């Protein structure tokens, strides 16, 4: 049985070590503090399309078994540090998502996440670009709004498009799927983005896409000038979705409302609802400083760095060999 062996080359393992060293030097130079937070948590994400691994803890102080979730990102715990006046922080940690594997996906992966008090998403985009230049030696990135990308490539305004127009466009793009009418508008937009836009942006240099529809805000604040969009950005490079960043939502009431809405969507879709992280909401009530934050997939960054075709080439033991 050859399955015990790593799927990586020694060369790629060295490249990972070097990449991590470069990242740490980058943040050290900028006076961003490295932190650690737990990977197990009593609360978890409520997103309809994000699932955490769950496990049971039998030795809690209450004497009753407690469900604990493996983090899908260290976001809530890191924001609690920010609420406790940590200042600028970063973390390199494992994140876990209960979903399939693929060329760009392993259920357990390494994530770099950092937060910048006093930064807007625009300033943070500039810092992400600087990190890409430092690690991948890229040219300065392109920037385009989500709306403009759709208009340029598909001649369709994603903020006003009707279901009918989206269905037509999917057909034109050759997206053949059963019962397309049952997909949400956001899923249709994401399919179109993946099929038609992703392949042509960020080829030569990274591309930042900003101003996602408010319905895909996640934990980003809504743009004060245009309520239809959120101050959220993503970074695409050579076919990979590399990073996702927010001008962070600070308002605890709105955050609670979004969690409840997510759970409502889960219920409607016949999915189990998820326990809300009350520690996180209490921290927001104490006050999250004005800040921007971003999460970046290190395995994907490394794939691009070494020119790997599959994520297995950079993860020693992917889930099939874990």
């Amino acid at each position, binding site marked *: 049985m050859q399955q015990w062996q790593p799927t990586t080359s020694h060369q790629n393992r060295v490249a990972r070590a070097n990449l991590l060293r470069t990242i740490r030097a980058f943040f050290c130079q900028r006076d961003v503090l490295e932190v650690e937070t737990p990977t197990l948590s009593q609360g978890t994400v409520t997103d309809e399309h994000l699932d955490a691994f769950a496990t049971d803890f039998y030795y809690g102080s209450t004497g009753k078994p407690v469900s604990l979730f493996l983090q899908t990102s260290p976001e809530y715990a890191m924001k609690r540090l920010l609420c406790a006046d940590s200042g600028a922080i970063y973390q390199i940690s494992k994140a876990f998502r209960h979903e399939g594997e*693929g060329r760009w*996906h392993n259920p357990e992966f390494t994530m770099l996440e950092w937060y910048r008090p006093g930064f807007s998403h625009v300033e943070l985009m500039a810092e992400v670009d600087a990190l890409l230049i430092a690690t991948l030696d890229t040219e300065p990135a392109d920037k385009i709004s989500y709306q403009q990308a759709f208009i340029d490539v598909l001649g369709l305004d994603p903020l006003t498009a009707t279901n009918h127009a989206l269905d037509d466009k999917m057909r034109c793009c050759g997206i053949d*799927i059963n019962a397309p009418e049952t997909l949400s508008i956001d899923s249709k937009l994401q399919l179109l983005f993946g099929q038609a836009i992703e392949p042509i942006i960020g080829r030569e240099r990274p591309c930042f896409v900003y101003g996602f529809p408010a319905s895909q805000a996640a934990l980003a604040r809504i743009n004060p000038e245009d309520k239809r969009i959120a101050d959220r950005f993503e970074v695409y490079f050579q076919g990979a979705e590399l990073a996702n960043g927010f001008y962070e939502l600070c308002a605890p009431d709105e955050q609670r409302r979004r969690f409840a809405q997510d759970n409502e969507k889960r219920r409607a879709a016949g999915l189990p609802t998820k326990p809300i992280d009350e520690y996180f909401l209490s921290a927001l009530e104490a006050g999250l400083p004005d800040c921007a934050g971003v999460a970046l997939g290190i395995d994907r960054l490394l794939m691009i760095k070494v020119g790997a075709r599959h994520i297995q080439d950079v993860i020693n033991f992917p889930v099939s060999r874990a």
Partner: protein
Amino acid sequence: MANYSTNEFKGGLKIMLDGEPCNILENEYVKPGKGQAFNRVKIRKLISGKVLEKTFRSGESVEGADVMDTELAYLYTDGEFYHFMNNDTFEQIAADEKAVGDNVKWLVENDVCTITLWNGSPITVTPPNFVELEITETDPGLKGDTAGTGGKPATLSTGAVVRVPLFVQTGEVIRVDTRSGEYVSRVQK
């Protein structure tokens, strides 16, 4: 036949689509960080031969197709059916014209072909990559031409027409690549 979930998708898996057995050529799992997961799949329909792309919601399940490949020797045609035999069990199977299709011109007695069976019935017949056939008719070439510039058409014993070098003559046996339909070499008798 069992159902397969998208998690089980991989190249070579046979599934049913629009009532036709298909072979999965490529499968890509796509999932935006915050979005719904899909499988983007490239599929070949095994009867029509059409290649197409299809998107599935991750977790969706599809019916498997009972498709298998078997190696059988070509025996003869009775005009309507083409008869093949398993050289180990001597079991015989008849494929119709639709299953044989254009490959009829590469069928050589006793050559072992790959027969794809769906629910036990032949749907495609794939000849060996190389077959040897006799030239029944070609224009006499110029003596001394060995460069084979341009070549000339030659009709083979099965009716196939291939381009051959000018020095190749009627009555000779040649080796042909069935995938490209191109002349490879002369065969010494």
